């Protein structure tokens, strides 16, 4: 578990305002916690190193501008809807994915 938490350490560091209400949400099927007033991006990066993999090189990405300009932080919810992480307030019970859900294709 120790190795796990080190490997999963968040990119962001909370330096202030840690005394806020905890909000539980699901990320890639795992139970994680953010704080009330976080955006989805802040909550994810507080406990993870990245938010998605890039479309072509599959390199990790963690957003860039935090203000809805760079479009680098789009993720999904489990219903398959797109969510821009840095402009979406975190809500308890969100079920989020950092990779796209699969689309049914035939295998003849």
């Amino acid at each position, binding site marked *: 578990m120790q190795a796990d938490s080190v490997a999963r350490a968040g990119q962001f560091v909370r330096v202030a305002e840690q005394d806020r209400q905890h909000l539980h949400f699901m990320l890639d099927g795992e139970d994680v916690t953010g704080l009330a007033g976080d955006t989805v991006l802040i909550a994810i990066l507080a406990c993870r190193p990245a938010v998605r993999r890039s*479309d072509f090189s599959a390199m990790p990405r963690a957003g860039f501008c935090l203000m809805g300009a760079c479009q680098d932080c789009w993720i999904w919810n489990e219903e*398959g*809807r*797109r969510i821009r992480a840095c402009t979406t307030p975190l809500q308890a019970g969100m079920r989020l994915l950092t990779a796209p859900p699969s*689309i*049914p294709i035939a295998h003849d």
Partner: protein
Amino acid sequence: MTDLSDFDVLIIGGGLVGCSAALFLSRRGMKVVVVEKGYCGAQASGVNYGGVRCQGRPIEQLPLALRARALWDNLPALIGTDGELIISGHLKLGRREEDLASLEAWGQMASAFGIQTSMIGGTTFRSRYPWLGSRVCGGSLCPTDGHANPRLIAFAFSRAAAAAGATLLEQTHLDTIHFDGTRFIAEAGGRTLRATWCINSAGAWANAVAQNFQESVPLETMYPNMWVTEPMPRFITHNLGVEGGGFYARQVDRGNCIIGGGMAQGDGNFAQPSSEVTNRVMAEARSILPALKGALVIRSWSGVEGKTPDKNPIIGASRTTPQLFHAFGFSGGGFLLAPGVGDLLAEWICTGSTSTPIHAFSISRFDRQQEEEACTQ
């Protein structure tokens, strides 16, 4: 004193038709100049949907379509790139049973020209295409059709033409042109150009050129509405169309889905996509391709395209002026045809005739119509 230059062929309009004609003529040893008011291939040629398709064309277009289609197989040798051509097959979908009947009828007609299609419906259709929604019930697949990237293709043809020796005058307006009995004299960009032959491939603006030579056609402008999604996991395996029109979609190798349908708006020179049309057709798109609900639309556009009343192009000799050829008015179906048209024009100019039947595209067909209408009044 203006620059004076002599050429064999003057081509008005540097789109795909003009640049492919320039390429094929240059390869046959002709000295060619292309006059283009903007950048080559930046108009309809560069912003169209990108369908490379024979399926669905009227019978009179099929010989030309097949001639063009053969050239598409040879792109790397012709223009140095495959232009992201994918022979994905074209699946023309039916919304209702009647649509399937008309698709089947087209298939039977086309088979006489060697174009193979197969009908798919029922449970086979559902199991092969689980990503197609219940909005559609079957379709006709033409496996030799496909799609390509118009931005790359149009540009590559212009570069290949230049490399083959053609002179491309971009950002150059054609100011005046007349035929002096022997050849064409044109003023463009402060230069005087003289040429034995002239091709009017000025796209949506070709009617003005035709009128300069006392010819006119009922050419209207259309602005096809298109948009594209972000890259998505690959799921659309064919270039898609729908019987009755109004929707077309393809997915490129990088994953973006390009979707089109409906008409946008414009002022003759400039096209602007319509958000209302995009939203309306997107609703249709979601019902045909449910997976799109998980996509982001990232860009929309339109283009300025010439349209004729019968949606056939105008290809052929001028009625009024010797050594002048028209090739315009492709009504949204020019991408596949254009290289074939360029090749045909080169053949005609260099040999005096062409083997491909194109009388259905004669510029005078509208005269006859107008004469008939005048008589009945």
